[in-house]
Each structure stands twice: as structure tokens, then as C-alpha cells.
């Protein structure tokens, strides 16, 4: 079984550390089961399950470090891997940015593991696919979807006495439903730690409705529109901002957070005052692993408060160089929303476009965080508070920074890709051309 208990993991890590001769040694073990099922044209085409466990050793002499990994956990394999990591470390060039390993840390108990997901088996996956394919086929629609589930653990320890252990589960499901003649397409997706919350029939029903409603889309002129972004669409663009708040790049003058004349825009009001972004490893809907990638305990952190940038990511090295406290990257972020439903937002819109999701988003200018991409799988024209008709997909060129200054309303939160994201109503969103793609 690929999931080791805390005690088993600790025992193996301690054993590896007892073999080590380097100045500092860190050991991590992770493993688990990853399963998937993929279907298209209303037929399952691939499904599989992988069980694996990997132990990674990092040995350090002075500022030289080397790593080795193994899949076998018998004493002989572990001994050999330690020797190999130490050999690689001794041959490695010095890393001037090396930071000594951390000592013991206090981690919270995370709620990332849910038994319902751990219990997933091939029958469950087949049922998820069946519950999506069947209703689609009955309406002469074509479903293509993908389910991936994970159940596993991660443990780490080092020669300075640090030890951490965490179990986690996840399930990600997405489906695209198309009309038989290819003139309509709809998409919906959900992700959870707890598989019992996933209902693939419900998710598929949404995608089916969008597919049917998007048939015979009309062309309207590209230009600046008020848009209502469903949480999936909002997340597609907001993650580009929330994942780009690195202090080092900002200090180096090569980030949207760099300040003219030098320094960073930390503490500046960059966004509308309704913008509040934070992360919380204990959030009940998006619990995250208890430690950051550098081994610090994850804590509730405010990134943006009332539109003001309150924190950026500081690696241990960069924090020490700048004389500040390190700030790790969060597991998922929460962008605070409001009470409005999407229906409320539509009702208050004189003229606008409802967007289900965006696609093929690529950076155009890292200086301004300008991105391009297209709408996909459900784009609708709104007039006088009502959805009037489906519209052809648009290409956009827009920056999430500009968007967060053009907020009309924020809606209820929904989990998207491990984050809590509101629907967003944004004015003056820039569509630059039309696409014939369905």
C-alpha cells in the first residue's frame, strides 16, 4: 500500500538519516494512488491507476548539495541512495544562495485527506463516466470528460530535527458537451478534496444546458464590454496575478510589482478597494498542506487588503538578503466576493457578455501583466438585464490589474482549482477580435 502511516514514514526517514554522513541531510517521501478515466464521443477511451512511492534524499556539504531518489525502501536501496546523494553533493558546484536547513517546526493538522476519495476504485470512475455519458447520449449530445483522483501522503524530515507528515486526497472532474452538429459547446468542472461532493450528472447537466443554449451563436462587434465572468473564467485570469507576486522579481525591476525608480509597490493601492485576497490553510473548502515549499508552517496570510498590496512571496534566501521575514507561496487563495448571484448580475446589466471560461491564455507583456486568450464553451450576449442570444467567441487582450480596477460587482464564491473565487462583473473588458471556433 502506497500510503505510509506517520509512524512508518518517520521510521524510514530516521533510518535514512542514520545512514547519512553529510553536513546536512533532508529526506522526503511521498506516494499514493493516482487514478483516471477519460471519455470522448460518449465512449470511455482510457482509464488507469498508478500506485507509486518515491523517497528523495538531499545531502549537503557546506554549500554543495545533491539529490538522489529511489522507489524501493529496503535497507540496501536506502543505503545506496544516501551514498549516491552524497557523491553528487560532493561533485556539485557551490550554491551561493544555499540556506541552512530548518530545525523542528510546529505544523497544524490539515484536513486535506477525506476517506470518500481514498475509497475510489475503477467502478466509481466508470460510474462517474456513465453518469455523464448517459444523459448526454439521451439528448443526442456528445460528451468528452476527464476524472482524475489522488489519494496519498507526503512526509519530510531532516538532520536538524524537522519532521512533518500529511495525507491528502483530491478529485478533479471536467466535461465538455457538444451538440451533434458541432454548433454548440458547453463546459463545466469541479474539484474537491472530498469525492462525495462530486456529482458528475449535475456537472454534466450544466455543460449540456450551455451546449444547447450556445447553438447558432451570432457575431457581435469586438470592443470594450461589461463582462460577467463565471468563477471558472475569473480564476483563469486571477491566478495569473496571484501566482505572480514574487518579491525578488519585483526588487529586481522585472515585475508588475516593480516601482519606477527602484523598489517594489508593496503597500501601494493597486486595485479597487473591494479587492481582498488572502490564503488560509485551514479554510474548510480549500484546506492546504501544512507547510510551504521551504518547510515553514503555512499561516493565514493577507495578500491584498482593500486594494492595497500587503504581502509578496519571499524565499528564505531573498528574505535574508532583504532583511525581512520569509513569506511562502500559499496552497490556494480566497478572493473575497459578495452576495450577488450570476442571475442578479445579469439583471443589473444593460449591455454585456457572460463568459463561461477562457482558453489558451498566454502572456503578452509581463510588464503590464497583459494576457491574450479566447472565450470558450458558452459565451452569451446580455441586454437590458437578460441573456439575449449566444455570441461567437472572442479573443481578448486584457490585464488582471486593469480588471481589478474596473469592478462592477463581485459574486458568491465557488471552489475552482483549489481556490475560492467569486463570479466577477467587470466593465471595459477588451475583446479584440472574433473567432469562429465552437
Amino acid at each position, binding site marked *: 500500500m502506497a500510503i505510509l502511516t506517520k509512524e512508518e514514514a518517520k521510521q524510514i526517514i530516521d533510518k535514512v538519516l542514520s545512514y547519512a554522513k553529510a553536513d546536512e541531510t533532508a529526506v522526503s517521501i511521498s506516494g499514493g494512488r493516482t487514478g483516471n478515466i477519460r471519455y470522448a464521443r460518449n465512449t470511455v477511451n482510457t482509464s488507469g491507476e498508478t500506485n507509486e512511492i518515491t523517497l528523495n534524499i538531499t545531502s549537503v556539504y557546506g554549500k554543495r548539495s545533491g539529490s538522489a531518489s529511489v522507489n524501493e525502501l529496503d535497507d540496501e536501496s536506502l543505503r545506496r541512495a544516501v551514498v549516491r546523494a552524497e557523491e553528487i553533493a560532493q561533485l556539485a558546484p557551490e550554491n551561493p544562495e544555499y540556506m541552512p536547513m530548518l530545525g523542528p517546526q510546529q505544523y497544524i493538522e490539515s484536513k486535506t485527506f477525506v476517506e470518500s476519495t481514498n475509497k475510489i476504485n475503477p467502478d466509481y470512475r466508470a460510474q462517474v463516466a456513465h453518469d455523464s455519458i448517459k444523459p448526454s447520449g439521451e439528448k443526442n449530445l456528445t460528451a468528452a470528460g476527464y476524472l482524475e483522483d489522488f489519494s496519498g501522503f507526503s512526509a519530510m524530515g531532516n538532520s536538524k530535527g524537522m519532521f512533518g507528515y500529511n495525507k491528502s486526497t483530491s478529485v478533479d472532474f471536467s*466535461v465538455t458537451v457538444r451538440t451533434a452538429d458541432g454548433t454548440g459547446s458547453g463546459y463545466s468542472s469541479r474539484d474537491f478534496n472530498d469525492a462525495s461532493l462530486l456529482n458528475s450528472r449535475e456537472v454534466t447537466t450544466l455543460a449540456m444546458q450551455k451546449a444547447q443554449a450556445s447553438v447558432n451563436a451570432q457575431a457581435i462587434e469586438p470592443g470594450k464590454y461589461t463582462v460577467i465572468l463565471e468563477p471558472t473564467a475569473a480564476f483563469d485570469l486571477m491566478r495569473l496575478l496571484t501566482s505572480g507576486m514574487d518579491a525578488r522579481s519585483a526588487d529586481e525591476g522585472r515585475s508588475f510589482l516593480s516601482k519606477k525608480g527602484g523598489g517594489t509597490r508593496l503597500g501601494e493601492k493597486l486595485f479597487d478597494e473591494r479587492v481582498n485576497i488572502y490564503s488560509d490553510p485551514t479554510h474548510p473548502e480549500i484546506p492546504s498542506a501544512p507547510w510551504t515549499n521551504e518547510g515553514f508552517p503555512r499561516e493565514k496570510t493577507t495578500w491584498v487588503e482593500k486594494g492595497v498590496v500587503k504581502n509578496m512571496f519571499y524565499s528564505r534566501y531573498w528574505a535574508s538578503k532583504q532583511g525581512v521575514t520569509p513569506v511562502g507561496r500559499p496552497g490556494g487563495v480566497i478572493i473575497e466576493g459578495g452576495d450577488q448571484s450570476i442571475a442578479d448580475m445579469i439583471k443589473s446589466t444593460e449591455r454585456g457578455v457572460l463568459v463561461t471560461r477562457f482558453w489558451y491564455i498566454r502572456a503578452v507583456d509581463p510588464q503590464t501583466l497583459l494576457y491574450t486568450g479566447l472565450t*470558450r464553451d458558452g459565451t452569451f450576449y446580455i441586454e437590458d438585464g437578460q441573456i439575449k442570444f449566444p455570441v461567437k467567441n472572442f479573443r481578448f487582450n486584457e*490585464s488582471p490589474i*486593469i480588471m481589478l480596477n474596473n469592478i462592477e460587482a463581485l459574486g458568491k464564491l465557488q471552489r475552482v482549482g483549489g481556490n475560492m473565487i467569486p463570479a466577477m462583473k467587470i466593465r471595459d473588458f477588451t475583446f479584440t477580435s472574433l473567432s469562429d471556433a465552437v
Partner: protein
Amino acid sequence: MKRRDFIHLSGLGLGAMITPGVLAMGNTVTAEQLTIPGLENAAKKNLADVALNAAKAKGASYTDVRIGRYLQQFLFTREKNVENITNAESFGVGIRVIADGTWGFAATSDVTPDGIKACAETAVAIAKANARLQSEPVVLAPVPGYGEVTWNTPIQKNALAVPVKEKIDLLLSVNNAALDNGAAFVNSNLFMINEQKYFASTDGSYIDQDIHRIWPTFNVTAVNKAEGNFRSRQALSAPMGMGYEYMDGLAKDKLANPAGFNSYKNSYDMVEDAVAAAKHSKEKLTAKSVLPGKYDLVLDPDHLGLTIHESVGHPLELDRVLGYEANYAGTSFATLDKWKAGDFKYGSDKVNIVADKTQPLSLGNTGYDDEGVKCKEWDLIKNGVLVNYQAIRDQAKIINESESHGCCFADNWSSVQFQRMPNVSLKPGTEKLSAADMVKGVEKGVYIIGRGSYSIDQQRYNFQFGGQLFYEIKNGEIVGMLEDVAYQSNTQEFWNSCAQICDKDDYRFFGSFFDGKGQPSQSSAVSHGSSTTRFDGVNVINTGRKI
């Protein structure tokens, strides 16, 4: 690490610099282990026969087995520092069967007769379980048994056998060259891959292949802190199906381009390119912002390759056309009815695009694909007309082909093989024409070099491409550098605006080292050859913004 972390590489803008924390697939090992030979062919044949026999005994009507050893060395540096050195080895067996007319696949890292037998039986069990959901039985286009054959990438110098220190010293000298010429920051990377693949099938083939690929790349940034500006310029190298000889930077492989510096053919001078990049990144800080409008575009092969990849390579993948990628990459505008009509004008008469997995030095160059089909070249677009797709054994019948095109690929022994893009290349023009001559004929245009931002819709109609370097052409002359340039077009409109193609002396490869497709996503490498090409009256937008 988890598989999807690796696949992250393929999702990055090709321009984006890959973080050194992103590791390779497989176990990390010493550099020396990457040069130790794997199993003898006789041993691999015995193990393969275990799989073929075990699957047959359980009722499989067809079986193929891939015993794969995948070796990778990735080097990452930044300014004066080595950020990471990753050596990885992944070894195991993937077994694919047809039972009850349905595919089944299983893979194992337990490369012993017992492990392989159990894996083959699992593959059959999965096929039988899925057979209940299968509406139509799988039919394979026939392929001859080739017996015991071998194929090797024709390399001169195994990059994995070159001492790590020598390679690191090169990258650090690249960084120094950039810093000495005014760059504020520079990252440089070297990716090297060796796939040792043994394929056997019940059709009677035992195919041993040794495949090598290399990709040197860098990103150079200039900063004007006073103005709060920064601009970057990436390497103009191409990933290649070559050994370390690609790094020789031979004079015969340098081609002076109309903008006054060197482009590279089949070997690369990384230090020289870094010096140019530092100067370019500074120049970009003050370059003129483009006036939007219609321009004639002169596209360098190191730029055009990506446009070919996105607007021709992907839409002509038959599995996309049929809807198998509908939930992820999307479908295609190039539907079967357009192909059947026989007169669908994909491009102007000048446009001849071929698919192949045989061009020497290309990333796609292999002897046989991952279902034991001998590789070849075939036409996709002839004199502007759509004539074919990319199809594998179980798709050939859909387009009335009697044999597979030989473009089936899996990125690892543990991944199931499926249809992947071969090299897709634009044939050079037949009349003598250099890039400099082409520029002379342009009244109002932009000369674009290098891969930049790229985005295209899920059916491959509407696209927007940027680049690394943009030069304004006025009345037949390059008059200066431009910034904030991107062009937007529609695939069919764009290829029909193709007005002129330089001759074979200008022909070069562009490559994509980490091209993603499928769920779970798999990565493949593919080249696109072309000569400098002119497209008339393309819509150029200005991407500058104030925040």
C-alpha cells in the same frame, strides 16, 4: 514528484523560463549512470516475449510491449550561479493489448518475467472490462513484421557523455557574455534527453531504438529601473534531434539575417547569440511602439515554426478532428467534409506542407513509431489544398488509408501511446530568393524573429502571435526596431495571404521540446522546417498598456 508537475513544462509559454525546481521524470541518479548501457537486446527480447505470450494466453488478439529506459539531464544556471543539475533515469515496461476488440494498457517498473507477466494480464483484464462500453471494435491497419531491427539518432557526440563541468562552464560563459554586454539578468539552460526504446509486437517486430535530443536556451533581461521598464530576449536556438555537436557553432551554420546579426542552422553559437541578446534587450527598452494596422509580414523560420505548429500541425491531428481531444485541447476547423471535398484552400498555391518523421537532425526523426510502424514523409497541404491528416493504425481506415502514417508516440514507458504530431514543415520556394531580397520587395512591413507569445482557439481558426524581435520595413529597407507587436489572423486567411517563400538555402528548423497533449497530459518533441516567408496584409495590433 508527481507526473503532472513535469507536464507543467509543456504548458508554459515556450518563452517563459522554466524554474530550476521543475525536475525530470524518473529517479535522480549520478551523471555517470546516464552513460552506462542498458539491458542487452537478447535480454529485452526474452522479456518482451514473456509479455506477448502472457497476453495471448489470456485472450489478447494483439499485443505490443515497450521496454523503455528514459534518460534526462537538465542544467539550470542564473548569472554566476548553478541553480540545479538534474540527472534522471526512468526504466520500465508498457504493455498494450487488444482483447474483445478493445484496447487495454498497463505498465510496470518491475522489469522481471513475473512483473511483466502480471502487467500483461492486467492489460488484458482492463481491455475486457472496458469492452462493455465499446461501441465499435478496434481495427488496425496492417503493418509488416520487421524482425529484429535497430535505429539510432545519427549523433556525433553523446551530450550525456560530455562532462557536466564542461557544459556548466559553457552556460556560465553564456551568462558572462550577456552580463558583459549590458544585461541585468540571464538564465541559461541545457536540456538533454536519451530514449532507449525497445518495441515488440505480435506482428513480428523487435525494434531497438536509441534516440537523442538537445535544447540549449536562455533568457536575457535588461532593466531600466528609473523608468520602471524591463525587456527580455530569448535564445534563437532550436531544439534538435542531435548530440552535443549542435553546440559547435560552426561558421557554415551561421546565416547573416536582414536585421544584421546571425541566425543559426544546424549548429549553434550560444555565446555569440547571448551577446546579441544582451544588446537586443537593451535596444527593446527604447524601441518605437508599433502603429496598429495592416502590414506585410516577413517571418523568420525561428518564428514561423510556431505558427505552423499551431495553425497546421495541431488542426490536422485526426484524433482532434474526430473529437477525442474535445474536453482539453479542443477539436478542429479542418473537418472531414473539407478534406473529402478535395478542394479546400487551406493556403495560397505556394503553400506545400509535409509531415514526416524522417528529416535528419529533426526532433521527430525516428526509424519506427511507438506502434512499430516504419516512419515516412507524406503531404498534408499540396499547392494550398488540404490533402491529408496525421493518422495512426486504428485511425487509418477513417481516411481510407491502407497503412498508418507512423506517428504514434508515448512520452514514457508508463504512458499509453497515441497520435502525436510528426514534424510538420513548409517546403521552401523553388525560385532563388534570400531573406534580404524578400525584404527589398516589401513596402510597409514587419520582419519578425523568434518565438513569442502565442494563442489560438480550440478549433484553430483565430490566432495571435508575438515574437522576440520586430523590425520595421519601409520601402524595401529595415528602418529600426519595433515593440508591442502582435499579429492576429484566421488560419485560412493567413495561409492564403502567403505571397513568397525563400529558397532551400534559407531553410531552418524551429522546434518544440515540450509539446503537451492528452489527459493525463503527455509531452513530445517536434520540429518544423521552413524558409523565411512573406504574408501580405496581416492585421498587427499594439500590445502596449499603461497600468
